[in-house]
């Protein structure tokens, strides 16, 4: 007996998907605020990297005679108490924020992912112990942990990088561990295993991309917090410690008493911090939406 003769015509899907990353990139580029954030970040990075080339003055040299000038033609952001050009100092401050901030996030990723991977991979008692350690770190809230570590290690750029990095490690550790645990038992990994895929292939093609995306988003958002935390440490007098180095937080502390007479000395470094932070926050949010389309707004 013959079966039905109908030939099935399946309508093609409206847009063929071309891989996770390319799709995500396309979504990201279409995201207005995220692109604005990217512009801010580019401005910040260019300012930092090109400071020695585009800064009109030397950040450490100034004469008190020329101090506390409001913004004018020769000094577009004015001069600070010691007569140093504010615009130059803001540019050089970007270098500190950029280097210290990004390295801090990198350290956080390093420590966090190490701990998270071991905990998630080994499981059992090791997992329990490591997570308890993370809980201890998390018990000291926010910037207080970084403050404590700087108090212990002393001042300096590297110490700040470590301090801020360690204070972010718990978040990354938990993220990675959570991803690994969830993925180990997820339906599609079991499906891949049942099809005979080797563990390495499973790890690379199935688990990593999914574990990576929350980390990428979190790292971007952490960059925003890092810029703020680094400036915060500088503000509290726990900054790099070198008086010749221009750091945004320290610039704020130095100028605080001139709030009434020279508010621009607070406004410009403050605005620089805010714009850089907004940039990373917007990009981070955009990445989150682009990389996980299932998330409804």
């Amino acid at each position, binding site marked *: 007996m013959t079966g039905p003769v109908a030939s099935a015509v399946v309508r093609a899907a409206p847009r063929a998907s071309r891989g996770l990353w390319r799709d995500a990139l396309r979504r990201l580029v279409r995201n207005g605020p995220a692109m604005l954030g990217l512009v801010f970040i580019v401005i910040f990075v260019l300012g930092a990297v090109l400071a020695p080339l585009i800064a009109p003055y030397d950040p450490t040299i100034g004469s008190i005679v020329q101090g506390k000038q409001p913004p004018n033609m020769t000094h577009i952001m004015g001069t600070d108490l010691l007569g140093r050009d504010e615009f130059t100092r803001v540019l050089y401050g970007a270098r500190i924020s950029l280097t210290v901030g990004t390295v801090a996030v990198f350290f956080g990723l390093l420590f966090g992912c190490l701990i998270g991977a071991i905990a998630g991979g080994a499981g059992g008692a090791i997992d329990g112990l490591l997570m*308890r*350690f993370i*809980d*201890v770190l998390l*018990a*000291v*809230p*926010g*910037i*207080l942990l970084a*403050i*404590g570590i*700087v*108090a*212990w290690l*002393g001042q300096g750029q590297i110490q700040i990088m470590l301090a801020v990095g360690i204070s972010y490690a718990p978040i990354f550790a938990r993220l990675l561990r959570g991803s690994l645990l969830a993925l180990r038992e997820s339906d599609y990994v079991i499906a891949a295993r049942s099809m005979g895929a080797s563990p390495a292939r499973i790890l690379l093609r199935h688990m990593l991309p999914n574990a990576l995306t929350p980390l990428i988003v979190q790292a971007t958002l952490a960059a*925003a917090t890092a810029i*703020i935390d680094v*400036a*915060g440490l500088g*503000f*509290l*007098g*726990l900054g790099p410690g070198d008086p010749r180095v221009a750091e945004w*937080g320290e610039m*704020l502390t130095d100028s*605080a008493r001139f*709030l*009434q007479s020279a*508010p621009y000395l*607070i*406004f410009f470094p*403050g605005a620089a*911090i*805010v714009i850089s*932070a*907004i940039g990373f*926050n*917007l990009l981070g949010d955009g990445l989150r939406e682009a990389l996980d389309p299932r998330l*409804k*707004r």
Partner: protein
Amino acid sequence: MLRFVVRRVLGAIPVLFGLSVILFLFLRLLPGDPAIAILGQHATPQLIAQIHETLGLDKPLYVQYLDYLANLLQGNFGASIIDSRTVVDTFLQRFPVTVELTIGALIFAVGLGIPLGRLAARHPNGWIDGLVTVISLFGISIPIFVLGYTMVYIFGVQLHWLPALGSIDPRLGVTAVTHFPIVDAILSGKPNAVIDSISHLILPAIALGSIPLATVTRITRAAVIDVSNEDYVRTARAKGLTQSRVDDRHIMRNAWLPVTTVIGLQVGSLLAGAVLTETVFTWNGVGSWVVSSIQNHDYIVVQSLILIFATIFLVVNLIVDIGYAFLNPRIRYS
């Protein structure tokens, strides 16, 4: 439910122990001789010997730790090198100031954040939602100290609406009884002192509360939107209930659950942020004390303060977790 509470409390204890070990080591592992690090310029052989005596630096490490632990459990948190007062004494004097600041910030963040979040959720992607999103973005992108100084400049320097520094005008002669600025002002019986202390709280509370405001708003919005899409909300509408009844009884009662968890976490943000806020507005709370102690190398104080901060944070989280379990019938009755 009881089992849940007991389990949580038991779980917190090892964390505190671990923290005490780390903080204990913090002091002992300072580069060089801890006594010299603490004393700094004031180091004389006499004082160094004294510190060694007090901290028991010559004894084996584990003995030192047990002594340290014993002291802690008896409420002995050490004393300040600078003014020789015990940590506990100064803490009792400074802590209420921080508490008042934190409560003020919390009231601002939650009191404004939840209504804003609900408003944004009612018209997703509308102009109110966009405005709320922008406010949230600025909330997390503007550091406390930048916001603080900006507000002081606008409202204090230019407009003269609000005072800039401190928790109260010292010329009003309010005696410190409880060390809560507003409570002391009320107790002094002078109405303009009360007004004065409240007006001193406004700017710092806003500065400190800016990040929690952004987070609470975002989470409330997300929670309300998620819950609005749940089946039981559809059932409620199908029964012919009014929109306000649906909003309050069905949507908010369920949206509260994730929001309370977030508020608990924000307390940590408030404690950490108090350090910066008290520095900007020169309030004499424990936050500014941490900073001055570090600058003065008063490490015993730093060690004890961090431990206290962490304990407070853990306790608050514990209370929030238990509160959540209480609010959620699925956990309460299981």
